[in-house]
């Protein structure tokens, strides 16, 4: 007797269903399979109905099937069994050496077709094992295909299989949606039909390579275009290429907006820094000019000093605009009704427009309050109105609208929420897309005489106020600027403390420690304060000031200090003074806005801050406000 060599796979228990109505043949087969008996568990049935009943309750690994039974014959027998046992391997054992039937059954899912009398036990057992392996492989392939098909059909990315000449052979729904077509419409189309001229060359290079990545603009039939990111794999099958497609148009837009925003932020920081340095210089000029004015011996000298002061005020106004763009301007926030603000400046708008421009104001009542600086809002209206006037050299209509706007969709340029909307529309020349994209950049202007700060200032103020601004424009049809400021409601309706604007020249007698690394400004301020009657101690930086504090025996009523100084800065000095002289008041002076003070970590009442450049009268008034409050 021959011995079968078995590997670990062969020792696996195989469940066999033998469907055979000839007792002698059945005995032959079970006899042949008797070696080795331990690996097989064979169930014998003689009729199709019996086999189908068995398959309802059992899952054999392989079915040995005679096609001609008492209750069924030929292909019908195979078909019924295959339907009932899709996971089992089927081995047809037939007395007919019928090639056509053999091919048909194998093509339809049988794993093998053996003619009786042509096999021994060894061959039969091997055929059974091969049949099971083939079935398992086929099942794995089927599952793999089902998985790939599910991924293909449900992918959010477009997947397309192209022929060698770029014709779409297969595509998923996402690919169709990308070019605004159904999947069926896309199949048969040429890729290059959607692409820019010259993409044929790119396609040729891709086809010749193994893989590639890139982007192209897809031009849709409706005239729009989408930016498509693709990942290409050549010859996934001979002459068939795979392309994964992703619409990145919106992502590209977002990135552009982010870049613009970052650029504006950077320019804003730069503008703020420049304004700070300018303010220090202007402080020196205006301080000395005030001293000159007060000591002038004749009207001519006094007049010159006044002109210098006037010029520094104009220059200070310019730096205020820069600070506003850089969002570093000192704000006096309070609850505002924009309609009231508009009423206040309407006469100025009238003057600005002149006779050639008709003005229409449509202010809806009770649209809600916003938290903003009134003078800044006035500046926003005036700057936008001035911009509109410039756009209508031949005259036209200016429409200013205030209404409530509820945004329920999350847009990059405007988050959801309730807003008061201020819209300023003109019927002027309009702007190109390129101009619109740069319109809020500082120093960008389309006018020969413009400073390029008007709209950038508006942008800065709106951002500083927590709002948003959009522009819509069409060449020769006019432009609309819309400012969106969040509606303040509920617990937020508490007015912010406002700084006293009262300025007066008041004499004093207390001791003041004045600290500023700008020597000229420090000296001028010192001279002025001494002229007011104060005793003034001066230092060029925090370290010197600390030494004076520690050494000076008498009381120091007020520390006036800059923030950014060499060696020891304002924060270190203020901390020291508060520790060693708790009775000393503090007044911070800076070319930056007050938010810079908080960034430097100095906890301070906002009323104890004075932004450079300041007039000596303003300084005097501020000093008295602090010291008299203390008293």
């Amino acid at each position, binding site marked *: 007797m021959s011995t079968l060599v078995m590997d670990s796979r062969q020792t696996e228990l195989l469940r066999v269903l033998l469907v055979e109505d000839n007792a002698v043949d059945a005995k032959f087969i079970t*006899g042949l399979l008797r070696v080795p008996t331990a690996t097989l568990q064979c169930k014998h049935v003689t009729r199709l109905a019996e086999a189908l009943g068995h398959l309802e309750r059992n899952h054999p690994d392989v079915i040995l099937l005679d096609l001609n039974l008492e209750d069924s014959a030929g292909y019908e027998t195979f078909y019924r069994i295959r339907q009932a046992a899709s996971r089992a391997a089927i081995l047809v054992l037939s007395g007919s050496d019928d090639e056509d039937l053999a091919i048909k059954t194998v093509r339809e899912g049988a794993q093998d077709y053996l003619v009786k009398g042509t096999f021994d036990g060894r061959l039969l057992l091997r055929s059974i094992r091969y049949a099971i392996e083939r079935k398992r492989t086929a099942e794995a392939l089927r599952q793999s295909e089902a998985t790939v098909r599910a991924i293909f059909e449900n992918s959010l990315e477009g997947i397309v299989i192209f022929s060698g000449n770029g014709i779409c052979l297969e595509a998923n729904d996402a690919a169709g949606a990308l070019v605004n077509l159904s999947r069926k419409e896309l199949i048969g189309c040429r890729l290059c039909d959607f692409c820019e001229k010259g993409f044929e060359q790119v396609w040729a290079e891709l086809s010749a390579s193994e893989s590639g990545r890139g982007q192209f603009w897809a031009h849709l039939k409706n005239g729009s275009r989408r930016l498509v990111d693709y990942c290409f794999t050549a010859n996934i099958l001979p002459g068939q290429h795979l392309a994964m497609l992703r619409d990145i148009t919106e992502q590209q837009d977002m990135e552009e907006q982010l870049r613009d925003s970052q650029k504006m932020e950077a320019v804003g920081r730069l503008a703020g820094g420049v304004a700070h340095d300018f303010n220090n210089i202007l402080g020196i000029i205006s301080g000395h000019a005030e001293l000159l004015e007060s000591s002038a011996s004749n009207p001519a000298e006094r007049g010159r000093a006044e002109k210098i002061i006037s010029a520094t005020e104009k220059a200070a106004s310019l730096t205020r605009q820069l600070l506003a763009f850089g969002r570093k301007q000192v704000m006096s926030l309070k609850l505002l009704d924009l309609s009231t603000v508009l009423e206040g400046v309407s006469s100025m708008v009238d003057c600005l427009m002149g006779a050639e421009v008709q003005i229409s104001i449509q202010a809806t009542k009770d649209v809600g309050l916003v938290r903003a600086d009134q003078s800044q809002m006035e500046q926003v209206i005036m700057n936008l109105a001035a911009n509109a006037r410039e756009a209508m050299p031949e005259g036209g209509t200016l429409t200013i609208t205030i209404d409530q706007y509820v945004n329920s969709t999350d847009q990059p340029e405007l988050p959801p929420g309730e807003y008061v909307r201020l819209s300023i529309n003109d019927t002027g020349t309009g702007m190109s897309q390129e101009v619109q994209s740069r319109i809020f950049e500082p120093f960008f202007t389309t006018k020969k005489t413009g400073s390029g700060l008007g709209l950038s200032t508006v942008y800065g103020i709106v951002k500083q106020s927590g709002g948003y601004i959009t522009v819509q424009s069409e060449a020769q049809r006019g432009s609309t600027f819309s400012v969106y400021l969040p509606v303040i409601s509920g617990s937020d309706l508490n007015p912010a403390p406002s700084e006293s604007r009262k300025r007066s020249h008041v004499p004093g007698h207390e001791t003041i420690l004045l600290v500023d690394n700008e020597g000229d400004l420090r000296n001028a301020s010192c001279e002025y304060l001494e002229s007011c009657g104060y005793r003034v101690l001066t230092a060029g930086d925090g370290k010197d000031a600390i030494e004076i504090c520690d050494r000076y025996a008498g009381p120091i009523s007020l520390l006036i200090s800059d923030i950014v100084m060499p060696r020891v800065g304002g924060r270190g000095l203020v901390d020291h003074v508060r520790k060693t002289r708790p009775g000393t008041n503090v007044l911070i002076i800076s070319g930056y806005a007050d938010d810079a003070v908080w960034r430097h970590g100095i906890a301070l009442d906002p009323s104890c801050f004075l932004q450079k450049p300041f007039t000596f009268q303003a300084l005097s008034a501020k000093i008295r406000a602090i010291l008299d409050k203390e008293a």
Partner: protein
Amino acid sequence: MARLNQLKSEHFDPDALWHRVHGDVTLLRELVELFDSEVPGMLARIDKAIKHALPSDLEKASHKIKGSMLQFSAHAAAAIALNLEKNGQIGAIAGAAELLQKLQQEISEVQKALHAMLRDGAQH
């Protein structure tokens, strides 16, 4: 003692059968005994189909006995059974009786050879 090669003829290939059962005399005996008990019924079924002129029954019954003859490497008997099956397929009952008679004779010879194989211990 008859040897396998002495039993070999154009009608029957005992060597092929011997290899098919892996020289398992016990299995061969079980098969022969089963065949002996089954074959009268199988032949009777063919006879009945011929006498009642039922071609479909003739085809089925002939197909069955053909399968068994192939398993026993009884090629001549299998060939006669195939002819009977074809007669059944085309509905030709005429001549079937003669074929059945030939089949009976062939099977009788095969049975004798099979018993000789068993009796002699199926030695090469």
